[in-house]
């Protein structure tokens, strides 16, 4: 086994280990916003570790190296955009869930707009002070 093969093995082991760790990390998190953090390491670090391994292992084939580099750059750039869009959607979901769970007193008015009392909206499953601003 040459030195180049050892370096390639180490780079691939790091890349795959990082991917496996992040996959299990995303699995154990409770919140979609927390899960989203685990998308970045495979898309950026692991991808460039694989590019480095390809450059060392297949240094005579520049086409393969350039395509792999293109995949890594694309994953890195795309991940930022998709994560942002998904986080926005997650925030909307969490805000809607929070609004449905927290009881709120709203004024009730008659047909002329005069206040005639108050009513509770929301399911009232959780007290307002128990809910964080993000969930």
């Amino acid at each position, binding site marked *: 086994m040459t030195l180049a093969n050892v370096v390639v093995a180490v780079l691939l082991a790091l890349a795959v280990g990082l991917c496996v760790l992040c996959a299990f990390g995303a699995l154990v998190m409770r919140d979609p916003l927390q899960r989203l953090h685990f*998308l970045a390491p495979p898309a950026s670090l692991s991808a460039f570790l694989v590019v480095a391994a390809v450059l060392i292992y297949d240094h005579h084939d520049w086409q393969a190296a350039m395509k792999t580099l293109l995949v890594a750059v694309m994953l890195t750039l795309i991940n930022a955009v998709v994560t942002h869009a998904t986080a926005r959607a997650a925030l909307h979901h969490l805000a809607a869930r929070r609004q449905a769970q927290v009881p709120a007193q709203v004024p009730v008015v008659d047909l002329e707009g005069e206040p005639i009392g108050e009513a509770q909206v929301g399911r009232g499953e959780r007290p307002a002070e128990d809910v964080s601003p993000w969930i």
Partner: protein
Amino acid sequence: MNLWLFAAFGLLLALAPCAAICLRGAAIDRLVGLELAGILDSLLFVCLAEGTGRTSFLDVALATGLLTFGGGLVFARFLERWL
């Protein structure tokens, strides 16, 4: 079996937690699992391309990455607006 195919097998194992995320929880959690699986798929195809010596698999990796982008954006927009 060479190094690249071992790496591809490891990435295949990493898809199992993504499948578990996609099979339970809210829709937005499933979307995150799908996006993570798309990233891992791209890297898996790169390893398969090097391991089998078929560089045409690199085009599959490229296509998978692009489809993950389009699919992720469309799903995120759909969940934000309609669900």
